């Protein structure tokens, strides 16, 4: 529908100019703008123009609703803040009054005018131009209905750490099927590696394994471990996911989990994953005794049979003949309605910080290595000892902020290291009675019971030195330093450089996104920040959603956080998914591009431009088609089509050109063409 070219409009347009307190009114003369609209745009269809202190308030919205009913408005323009904030507010207000929501247009005279200019006269004139643009445009709008798509009740959860486990259990407990895909042979994630967890000093395995068992036995959860997602197609409610189940070389229907294969396997390998490089496993292994599922896997790269053709001891000794060297990878295609990404984190590679000596100096350990030392099921059966495997340290230095808050490595705070360092201090004191030093810049103990834990650690006698450690060295200089590791630091509260000899150093290394986070993000059609954390829809108000409908994020994949926050996010993501599933269908914004097949020449220029894979080409008819559910309305194809065959529902060429006419003040009553251009 378009305004008639003889200048007599078809529509009845209501204009509302918001003061936004002093945000807009402090710079722009809002009364003048409203009055101007009434005077100068009346011939373009404006029948009423109001200004009001806070249009978004209930009273402000009621103004619009009343006018729609009493004045028979057919279009509404609100000149206020950015649509990001209140577009839904005003559209819903219109809908309540019986006007189609897409006949309401928002013009930003705050972010685009009053907040960016100091010249009041110029800003006011600009606001008028913006408003005129909105009025012209909205006359070109057509009523639209949202796209309704059904929601498949199954959910895909990627990542079997505590975040994924939490999300999976909540959705499964609500009665819906879940596929939980985990890359490692067992679920559990990093939490399974820890010894005790702060602030309660619960044993990590004790609180985690019951959940793991629930996942493993839940009738609604299909557990796919030793598996990876390789392809994702579709859109919210209707994803088609391809999962590669890597060959375990074990027949899981026959395997009893007895462990004889692991015992007898002659090939010992350093376990870089679960034991953090501090312990060993075999070529056929389960990562830890409480693994879920219990089935081992054979590590192809280290198996003597696969590499050299000999051995096969496991096969010979397996009582149920469950070893199958011929097994192949299996590919599954799953239909799901929603996806939760809970892929977790990696720790920073401490070898990059040469001055701390990790990798050169034997008794410098990372936090993960320390967790394994401390863990009763770890390589030293829980004895906190030096790298020789035997000696108990008499003095230990724990360094905070290793590779965090550092522009040379990661310029963010890793959130958990202060509490983790306090935890280590506590455990070392408890187990060894050693003298413990903690070296920090700040003590960040922000959540419930955290600061109380800090008090407890102080009571136990750990010595705190405020200073960021400059270097860890074995180059002895002063008496008492021979044979020790020396921590050189400025004790900033005293104002002196100190050299403190210790036996063992523990580095609280920073958390980093998974090494392959960029690839994973691309696979699922979402974005990562520059350092690799998955980007949430809104950092404060929507931390578990992403910009892609139907794909949610939970846990450290979104950013470093502790276990309580991770669990909360897992639950939040589950709640969002359940909301979708319960509604059975979801309404998508009808802001979509579509191809006029009569104009499409089959040139295919648009085909490769779509970031959302929404475009398909029909060879038989030589035309392009856009999938409305996948299309996000970005407009790239609309602009690219040389024939003008593609138009967008809320950004058609007519609408955009009309808005330009308004911006240039060409249609304003009394304006000469040359005067048209605003400041």
């Amino acid at each position, binding site marked *: 529908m378009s305004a008639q070219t003889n200048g007599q409009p078809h529509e009845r347009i209501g204009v509302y100019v918001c003061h936004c307190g002093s945000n807009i009114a402090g710079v722009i003369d809002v009364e003048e703008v409203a009055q101007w609209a009434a005077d100068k745009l009346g011939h373009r269809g404006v029948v009423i123009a109001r200004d009001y202190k806070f249009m978004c308030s209930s009273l402000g919205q009621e103004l619009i609703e009343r006018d729609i009913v009493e004045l028979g408005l057919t279009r509404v323009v609100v000149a206020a803040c950015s649509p990001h904030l209140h577009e839904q507010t005003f559209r819903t207000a219109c809908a309540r009054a019986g006007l189609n929501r897409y006949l309401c247009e928002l013009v930003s005279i705050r972010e685009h005018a009053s907040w960016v200019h100091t010249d009041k006269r110029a800003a006011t004139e600009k606001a008028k131009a913006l408003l005129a643009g909105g009025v012209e445009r909205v006359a070109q709008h057509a009523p639209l209905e949202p796209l309704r798509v059904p929601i498949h009740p199954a959910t895909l959860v990627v990542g079997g750490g505590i975040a994924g486990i939490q999300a999976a259990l909540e959705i499964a407990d609500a009665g819906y099927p879940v596929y939980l895909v985990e890359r490692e042979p067992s679920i559990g994630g990093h939490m399974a590696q820890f010894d005790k967890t702060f602030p309660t000093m619960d044993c990590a395995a004790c609180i985690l394994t019951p959940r793991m068992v629930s996942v493993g036995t839940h009738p609604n959860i299909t557990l796919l471990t030793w598996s990876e997602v390789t392809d994702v197609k579709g859109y919210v409610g209707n994803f088609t996911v391809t999962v590669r189940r890597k060959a375990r070389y074990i027949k899981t229907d026959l395997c009893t989990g007895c462990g004889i294969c692991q015992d007898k396997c002659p090939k010992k390998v*350093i376990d870089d994953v679960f034991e953090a*490089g501090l312990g060993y496993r075999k070529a056929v292994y389960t990562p830890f005794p409480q693994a879920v599922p219990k089935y081992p896997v054979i590590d192809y790269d280290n198996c003597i049979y696969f590499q050299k053709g000999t051995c096969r001891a496991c096969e010979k000794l397996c009582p149920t003949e469950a070893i199958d060297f011929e097994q192949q990878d299996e590919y599954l295609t799953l239909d799901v309605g929603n996806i939760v990404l809970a892929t977790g984190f990696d720790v920073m590679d401490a070898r990059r910080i*040469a001055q701390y000596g990790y990798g050169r100096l034997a008794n410098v350990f990372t936090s993960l290595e320390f967790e394994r030392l401390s863990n009763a099921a770890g390589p*030293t059966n829980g004895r906190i000892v030096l*790298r*020789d495997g035997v000696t108990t340290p008499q003095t230990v230095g724990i360094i905070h902020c290793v590779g965090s808050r550092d522009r040379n490595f990661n310029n963010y705070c890793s959130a958990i290291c202060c509490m983790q360092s306090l935890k280590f201090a506590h455990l070392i004191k408890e187990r060894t009675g050693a003298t413990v030093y903690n070296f920090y810049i700040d003590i960040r103990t922000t959540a419930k019971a955290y600061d109380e834990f800090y008090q407890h650690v102080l009571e136990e006698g750990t010595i705190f030195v405020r200073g960021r450690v400059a270097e860890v060295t074995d180059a002895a200089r002063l008496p008492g330093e021979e044979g020790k590791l020396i921590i050189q630091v400025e004790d900033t509260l005293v104002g002196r450089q100190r050299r403190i000899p210790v036996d063992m150093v523990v580095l609280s290394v920073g958390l980093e996104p998974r090494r392959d986070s960029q690839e994973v993000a691309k696979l699922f059609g979402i974005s990562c920040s520059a350092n690799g954390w998955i980007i949430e829809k809104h950092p404060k108000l929507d931390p578990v959603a992403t910009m892609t409908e139907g794909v949610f994020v939970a846990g450290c994949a979104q950013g470093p956080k502790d276990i309580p926050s991770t669990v909360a996010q897992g639950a939040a993501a589950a709640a969002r998914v359940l909301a979708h599933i319960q509604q059975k269908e979801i309404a998508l914004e009808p802001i979509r591009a579509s191809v006029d097949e009569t104009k499409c020449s089959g040139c295919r220029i648009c085909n490769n431009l779509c970031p959302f894979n929404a475009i398909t080409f029909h060879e038989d008819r030589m035309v392009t088609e856009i999938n409305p559910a996948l299309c996000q309305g970005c407009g790239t194809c609309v602009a690219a089509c040389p024939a003008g065959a593609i138009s967008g529902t809320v950004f058609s060429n007519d609408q955009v050109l009309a808005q330009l006419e308004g911006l240039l003040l060409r249609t304003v009553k009394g304006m000469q063409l040359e005067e048209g251009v605003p400041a």
Partner: protein
Amino acid sequence: MPKYLFYPGCSLQRSARPYQDSINAVKELIGLELEDVRDWNCCGATEYVAIHHLAAHALVGRNLALAAQQVDGTRTVMAACSACYLNLAKTDSYLRADADLAEQVNTALAAGGLHYTPGTVRVRHLLDIVVNDIGLDTIKSRVVRPLKGLRVAPYYGCMIARPDRDNRWDNVEHPVAMDRLMKALGAEVIDFPMKTHCCGGHMTQINLPVAFELIRRLIHGADQYQADLIVTLCPMCQLNLDAYQADVNRYFNTDYRLPVVYFTQLVGLAFGLEPDRLGLGKEFVDARPALSRIGIELPPAEAAEAEAAVARRARKQKAPAGLPMPRMPNDHEEGQ
């Protein structure tokens, strides 16, 4: 033959004459052609910039401008002294980053009829060129007398490694270029933790006890690891560790006898050149006892002394079995 412009710096003329001599001796053998920057002036060391700001950059600017006039095929200015290298590279870097500074410096240079467009030349250290341009394969192919049995402590000093600007070519805390070069010559390289700790620079002229301590730490560190000699690449470092070693011994009542030589001297020895061609014999702490280990002739009395020193050295400790160590990137380096 790769050709480079050469900025020798004041030290190489006299106090570090052995460095210059050894560079001259080996350069043809490794295919390094050098053309001196004509009429170069002092880079200012760490002194000029303590008094003046703009003039310090103009001082270096003259050298850069002169080099730029000589650019003919090669754009690289090579310095062998770390302080000269740092000053030239730093000034060029600042001029490139700060247009106002560049304008002011060029105003000053204009008073002398000179001009320098920032970035015209690229400043690099001799070690960088030897290891990365000439390459270790070429070096190895020239070795006729491998330095087998010689334990060397590679001492880089601070200014070659830091600060890290756009022209980083090795790790700022733990560089390995000279380690790899020494290994290519067949020497045994100790993992010297003090390899980039500062020798103190001009501290010897300011506060002797402080200077002595800075020097002692380095010698002690190398001694702890039972090095036969310290290999260096900066004239200031060589002077401090060598010329003041006797004073350090007196002050701390120690008995270090650790010779300090330039890496080019060891390169020359490995190539089979004679010690006096390489400026050996001009060091305060005589290097010949250590070098006897690779067949350098010694008078009998000194030879016996050298044997005794070897015998005194404890056997290398085997790493205790226990928990696995993390694997480091250069664990599988050539020559190891």
